[in-house]
């Protein structure tokens, strides 16, 4: 008998069909990442409920899971994307607040930290404005890649769209983002921050 920790996600989901409580193992593995992704998108005010909704939906659909897909992360992110999609207006509102005020209602204020990843406040505002103006589908693809670190193929799996559509959406989203950032030289900015 395989030890539970050695089971891949697909095996855990299959086992949960006759041992429902085994599904909690999937939560143990991925809840933190899903929680973080949801929080980045919508803040932590409703993260608890949304993560719970995501995993409960996953549990109810587990009999439709393709056992050939060893890693359940794309599946879970896809469900999370649908849950987040119900709160699209909230997401856009939060992004616009950041764009307008420079104060992010979602992330903690670490503006005093020198970090190569953390850009200047003005740039953050422009990025937020760009994200807010993206089409929902384009934003979904962009953030699954940038924030959830999914590959193109995994994003395609998560959103049930062809890989070619992932590429075209990402290309469109990046083009719009670059247009917003046109006034900045990202390379120069990074050097400024690191010195």
């Amino acid at each position, binding site marked *: 008998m395989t030890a539970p920790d050695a089971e891949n996600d697909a095996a855990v989901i299959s086992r949960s069909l*006759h041992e*429902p*409580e085994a*599904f*909690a193992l999937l*939560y*143990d593995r991925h*809840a*933190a990442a899903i*929680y*973080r992704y949801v*929080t*980045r998108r919508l803040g*932590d005010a409703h*993260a*608890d409920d949304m*993560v*719970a909704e995501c*995993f*409960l939906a996953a*549990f*109810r659909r587990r009999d439709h899971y393709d056992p050939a897909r060893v890693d359940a992360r794309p599946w879970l992110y896809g469900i999370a994307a649908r849950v987040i999609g119900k709160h699209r207006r909230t997401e856009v509102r939060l992004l616009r607040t950041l764009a307008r005020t420079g104060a*992010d209602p*979602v*992330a*903690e204020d*670490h503006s005093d*930290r020198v*970090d*190569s*990843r*953390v*850009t200047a406040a003005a*740039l*953050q505002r422009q*990025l*937020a404005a760009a*994200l807010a103006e993206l089409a929902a589908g384009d934003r979904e693809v*962009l*953030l699954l*890649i*940038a*924030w959830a670190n999914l590959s193109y193929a995994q994003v395609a799996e998560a959103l049930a769209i062809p890989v070619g559509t992932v590429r075209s959406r990402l290309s469109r989203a*990046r083009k719009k*983002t*670059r247009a917003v*950032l046109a006034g900045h030289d*990202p*390379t120069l*900015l*990074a050097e400024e921050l690191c010195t």
Partner: protein
Amino acid sequence: MNDLDLIAGLRADVAEPPSASLAAGRSRLTAAITAETKPATARPGRMSLKRPAIAICAAAAAAATAAAGVALTSGPAAVQAHQGTAGNARTVVTAAWTVREAGGTVTIYLRQYANPARLQQTLRADGINAIVRRVPVGMRTVTVPVRVPGSEKAPLRIPGATCRYATTNDAPPAVQRAAVTFGGQDLPARFIIHPHAMPPGSALLLPFLTGLRASAASGHGRIKPQRPVVLNNDTVPACVPFTKPAPSAAARAPTAKQ
């Protein structure tokens, strides 16, 4: 650093999820899993989930149904009855969407049809692959016998369904008979759904009418459920509009009066 890196850096500093939140979330999930699979764990050795029967209070006579409903749900559920607007008609208001009886029956009240999406969600949470659909209602011309001495059949304009779901995806009659029964000792007029008699992959279509006159419905938000239908799968058949009455039939009515 390219634009994608910049986006990746945005909100990279969101706080890690509190361990207490994750633990609470796990508890919620395991509780939900236990609740959803409780019937199966109560019967060790059974692989398939035993799902409860569903009684749908669908009485046309509101008073009788309401009274019976009170009797049925008195006990674990918080139920309150109050006087309705129409004389002795009473309305039963349940505190919860579903009321689980000791025998495993789930009672669905007429008022729950007022929120079909919620009702559908509730039933699915109970393991019933339900599809709740509102049937379009409009004014229809029907010919009914008029109980007035000397009168003949006359066309009337009454509110009613404007279409009927096609039977193209219906499960076989034997399945229908096993899955949906009528009547009961405690509640005279109701549907009882037996989900365990539904084949795997099948769905339960719960059509209903709303917006009817109080006399045509039951006073519960003027909602009138139709007989549930077991479908072979999730595909909901088209609602086929009723054809208008043939001109000859309309022409016959005045002739009969002559």
